[in-house]
């Protein structure tokens, strides 16, 4: 509710605040240079690059086999997706066959990873809204279970190195599948609990409804992807619009934002996506075929044919693209990442101008940017 008071005569100095890089709520090391008029943001300038690790350069100076172990770090909350994008690009060049079981396993772990990434987002989003002490522990509890499952098949909790060029690295045991089933069985209840606490909470509604409205045209101009654009009502999900892997065989729907694309819509989109992913996991488990898991032998001198390839997949944050040029040696000639967070972050200033400080975190949290993904 904005006031209609004429404040022109009360104009005071604008205050410049450096939010970050060590601010508790900038999800890593984003720096925002804010010009504040009282509590109202007049100008925003995101400063990025604090987490730059030269991921592309590293890819050009490591063998493909070595680089596979590094790409989980591009977006450390959804390592499976970065691996998958890279693997897809390389497979496109090489033309190697991926066994169906590997395809299903890939989809399975990716959807699990999507849930775990969204769960982390949910927790931190509520922290950004101010529920610092209670709620965030619940999604993190479920994420912990997923990470334990990842630990069992991939060896580590976040740096998986599981999806490889030509397939996946390890065939899980039957007991693992049962654990996944157990998780999916109880997960919808957990989401219901989150929703009972958050979704209709009057304070949450007040802080998110009508806040940070992302216009369709603005979103398309900036190249926003993922749940952020689907919250604005644009049906753009690569799993449907440009299906890859085994997604054509799976039965799912893309949740879209119902209103004008505000923070609450983006929140709702992710919640529904988690339910959807849970569903997909179950389908993958049901359809899981037997057979090989690796279409290409994993050796130190892993080579792919010469050529270039681009693969884009739908990561929890949006369209994650990987472009690889190979000259036939064991190193890629050029690697280029198209990171969803980078494009999503670009839209931030246009959403923040004219909003109070408190909205910065709500909006920034809702577009789900993670900084390693921005800086690479």
């Amino acid at each position, binding site marked *: 509710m904005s006031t209609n008071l004429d404040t022109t005569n009360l104009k005071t100095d604008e205050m410049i605040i450096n939010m970050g890089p060590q601010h508790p709520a900038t999800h890593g090391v984003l720096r925002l240079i804010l010009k504040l008029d009282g509590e109202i943001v007049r100008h925003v300038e995101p400063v990025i690059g604090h987490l730059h690790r030269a991921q592309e350069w590293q890819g050009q100076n490591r063998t493909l086999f070595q680089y596979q172990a590094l790409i989980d770090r591009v977006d450390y909350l959804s390592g499976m997706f970065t691996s998958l994008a890279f693997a897809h690009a390389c497979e496109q060049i090489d033309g190697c066959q991926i066994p169906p079981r590997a395809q299903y396993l890939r989809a399975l772990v990716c959807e699990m990873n999507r849930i775990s990434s969204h769960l982390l987002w949910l927790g931190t989003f509520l922290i950004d809204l101010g529920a610092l002490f209670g709620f965030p522990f619940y999604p993190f509890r479920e994420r912990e279970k997923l990470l334990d499952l990842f*630990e069992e098949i991939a060896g580590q909790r976040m740096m998986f190195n599981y999806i490889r060029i030509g397939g996946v690295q390890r065939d899980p045991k039957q007991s693992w599948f049962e654990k996944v089933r157990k998780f999916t069985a109880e997960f919808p209840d957990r989401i219901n609990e989150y929703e009972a606490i958050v979704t209709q909470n009057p304070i949450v509604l007040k802080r998110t409804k009508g806040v940070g409205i992302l216009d369709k045209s603005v979103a398309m101009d900036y190249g926003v992807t993922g749940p952020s654009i689907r919250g604005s009502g644009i049906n753009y999900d690569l799993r449907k619009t440009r299906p890859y892997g085994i997604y054509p065989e799976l039965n799912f729907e893309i949740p879209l934002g119902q209103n004008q694309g505000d923070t609450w819509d983006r929140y709702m989109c992710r919640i529904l996506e988690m339910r959807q992913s849970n569903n997909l996991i179950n389908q993958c488990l049901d359809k899981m075929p037997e057979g090989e898991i690796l279409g290409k032998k994993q050796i130190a001198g892993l080579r792919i044919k010469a050529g270039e390839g681009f693969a884009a997949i739908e990561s929890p944050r949006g369209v994650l693209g990987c472009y690889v040029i190979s000259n036939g040696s064991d190193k890629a000639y050029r690697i280029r990442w198209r990171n969803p967070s980078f494009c999503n972050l670009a839209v931030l200033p246009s959403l923040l101008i004219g909003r109070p400080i408190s909205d910065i975190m709500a909006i920034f949290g809702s577009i789900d940017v993670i900084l390693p993904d921005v800086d690479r």
Partner: protein
Amino acid sequence: MSNLITRAKDSIYQVLRGLKTVAVHSLRIPTTKEYPDTMPPLPPHFRGRLALNVNPETNEHLCISCRQCERVCPDKCIEITAHKSPETNKLELIDFKIDHGLCMFCGLCTEVCPTDCIINTNDFEMADYSREALVYDIRKLTLTQGESSHYFAAKEIALPKPKPTKPAVTVTPATSTVKPAEAKTESKPAEVKTESKPEEAKTESKPAEVKTESKPAEAKTESKPEEAKTESKPEEAKTESKPEEVKTEAKLEETDIKSTDNDIK
């Protein structure tokens, strides 16, 4: 007005619903794992500290010094010292260093190893006071027979075939089977296990070290070259040791490691 009241009623109901959901959680069993008291159950393929296997049956070192792991490591944190034995013309491992401060536990080295020698153990408690202490040498890396067989079973790796021809100069020559075993057991504390701290290991291994008078700590820091044994370079020590002096050989090895430690410094 009535709109206001319904909204207020609705808000209060939603807040109470949230409060109830949170309050009911206090009846659930906590998910906290009280870590130092109870170890988390780690899956066998967990990628923890690196270690070198021995053959669970014959207790011979599995590494064939092929340097595959050294080459594949993205961080270049493995350093293998090997030399060609003049007699058998075969590569022979002298030292194997892994800088765990540099390692990112990607597990690539374990994937390429042809003999399943280097593996990721389930140990993750490697905190130490200095960076140097994170550089593990062969003695700290090599697992005991029992641990090796445990990991072979847990990771479901096929047991290795015993080496077809035994090199003449290794610690386990055809001379006698009893003595090397003795030497091994004596040096066992030095092979740092998950529980024992490096300092302890050092002090325990002291009795085995008859010739060196200096305390372990001193040996680390200064290790005077007065003692001819400590002075000797690894290669020399290896080559000059005669098969009949198995015991001294074992001692030698320890002093070698001291001196190499010193070299790193």
